């Protein structure tokens, strides 16, 4: 469901945070709305969402909360997405905020009170299918939330470095839908990240990727590393998961360079899986061919 291939909106707001340093939810909601409208070339977000979520569809927001409260998908961004969907007529009851375990969701502050929608771990919501789904080198049991409960998948990862896969932004976050992610970290996760994204059910249901860059991290991931995290104060939005990750890589690479860190390629973890994913037809991995639409304070 790559409706806008090769297009990524990079939206930043230099005034996202208040005097106390905390993200201001109204400004984040506004930034999200601008990004969605820009991506869809739509007059309002309602028009945008109508292309993404068909009436009556159940929506899963796949978050990333491996790193705990300090570097997970933020409740503020999830709340903004839930509210935006609500404005478009998708009731909160039709949305599930989801990751591997209920414990991790809670630890990241992703509660129904904080997000406005139900939050469930795969472990408490049906577990995994008993049959193995195959895609390339990957063979895994898939989370039943994905296979049975939702019709539309919105992937909301974090803009961050990953010590094995290079980056963990959108596509790497999809490891959370398989039961055996630990088996797929060799060779800088190539072709495994691409293979997971190429699972037929993922391809069919993944409608939108959002990278939470309110706090981003250029090194030391996937855990939180205060020395390498920075307030990027932005988000990336796109339906092309490959292009979005490619743009995210660029942001991380620029930050690494500015901090005197070796490039991901020099660190021997350039995400080769981007090119593999492109070869599967999942999206655009060539940055020169990606149309980056800058919103607010730009990329």
């Amino acid at each position, binding site marked *: 469901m790559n409706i806008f291939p090769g297009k990524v909106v990079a939206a930043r707001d230099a005034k996202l945070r208040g005097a106390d340093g905390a993200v201001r939810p109204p400004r984040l909601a506004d930034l999200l709305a601008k990004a969605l409208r820009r991506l869809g070339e739509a007059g309002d977000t309602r028009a945008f969402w109508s292309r993404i979520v068909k009436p009556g569809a159940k929506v899963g927001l796949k978050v990333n909360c491996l790193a705990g409260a300090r570097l997970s998908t933020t409740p503020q961004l999830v709340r903004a997405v839930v509210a935006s969907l609500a404005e478009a007529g998708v009731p909160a009851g039709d949305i599930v905020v989801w990751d591997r*375990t*209920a414990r991790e969701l809670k630890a990241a502050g992703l509660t129904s009170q904080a997000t406005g929608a139900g939050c469930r771990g795969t472990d408490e919501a*049906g577990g995994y299918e*008993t049959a193995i789904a195959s895609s390339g080198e990957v063979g895994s049991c898939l989370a*039943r939330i994905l296979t049975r409960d939702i019709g539309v998948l919105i992937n909301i990862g974090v803009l961050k470095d990953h*010590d094995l896969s290079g980056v963990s932004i959108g596509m790497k976050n999809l490891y959370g839908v398989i039961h*055996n992610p*630990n088996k797929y970290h060799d060779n800088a996760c190539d072709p495994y990240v691409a293979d997971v994204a190429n699972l037929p059910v993922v391809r069919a249901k993944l409608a939108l990727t959002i990278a939470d860059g309110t706090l981003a991290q250029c090194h030391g991931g996937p855990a939180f590393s205060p020395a390498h995290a920075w307030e990027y104060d932005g988000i990336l939005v796109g339906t092309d998961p490959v292009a979005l990750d490619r743009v995210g890589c660029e942001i991380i690479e620029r930050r690494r360079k500015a901090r005197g860190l070796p490039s991901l390629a020099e660190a021997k973890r350039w995400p080769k899986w981007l090119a593999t994913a492109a070869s599967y037809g999942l999206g655009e991995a060539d940055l020169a061919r990606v149309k980056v639409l800058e919103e607010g304070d730009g990329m």
Partner: protein
Amino acid sequence: MACERRSFLKAAAAAGLAAAAAPCRGAGQAAEEASEFPVKPARHFVALPEKRVRCELCPRKCEVADRERGYCGVRENRGGDYTTLVWGRACSLNIDPIEKKPLFHFLPGATALSVATAGCNMECKFCQNWEISQFRPEQIAASFMPPARLAELAAARGAPAIAYTYSEPVVFFEYMYDAAVAGNARKIKSVMISNGYILEPALAELCDVLAAVKIDLKGFTEKFYKEYTKGELAPVLAALKYVAKRRVWLEIVVLLIPSLNDGAAELTEMCAWIAGELGPDTPLHFSRYHPMYKLKNIPPTPLQSLERAHAVAKKAGLNYVYLGNVAGHEAESTYCPQCGKAVITRYGYRVDARALTDGKCAGCGAPVPGVWE
């Protein structure tokens, strides 16, 4: 999900172990709360910069960042401290005949309290126990069964051995080691049923406390190991040699898969290696494969293939060669290499060892190597 197919409760009840079993909460609920199981320090790792660690338990030597797990999925880096998530976390518990492991030269006719946790450091496409070996601990039902309790349970059930089996005990090293120590204190022996994918320092510690080791030799080419197990052959051969050197009782199983690892040249080379490096008295079991997990397009091993392999092994000079998963076959029994008398006859798990007296053939008096008491 494994809860549905391999119900811990069902297995434990079948073995009369219901008192030891925890309720299976099924796939629809959180499998386990973290607080139910202790998280113990892992052994055999080195700390790296930036809170990373390198696990040195098995040849994979995973380098694991903070908050991540190694390939086996049961060892986790928590802020630079490497931990095991499966100490005492038993997902399968049964009383089995020792012949089921299979160990044929080790307390014939005895039972073993058999225990597993989640996890494996390989991923064999033909894994017969993938519903536990290929899952993370929190994804399957389990019961807290600390080492002392295992030893106590084995003693109470009259089992002279604890077998670490079903999944891959190497990855629950700390639990196995501590349980073996607890068992030894009660004169309960410990046996490891393993893929042998382990580094020598860890294996050396295990050999101090184990009475027997069975290693699955999955093939005899690196190509097969790479393509079908995601492991390597060379470290397994090194482990076999090490166990043989330590004089811990050793038996080998080869699961024969038609067209993949049953070529005459490969088997000839394998058997010559076993005879030469480990000794002709090393028991070798050829076992029948059944389609399973990710290898379902190959039919079960025909009996002729097993018999061919048996002949190759005998020709290589191996004295004790067995066929598995073929109940009633004459190659289930143990024959004296001197006089040919059947010293232990078997039919499935029915065992008659009356022709073995004090570890010697009742016919000619030749010693038969093994652990007989």
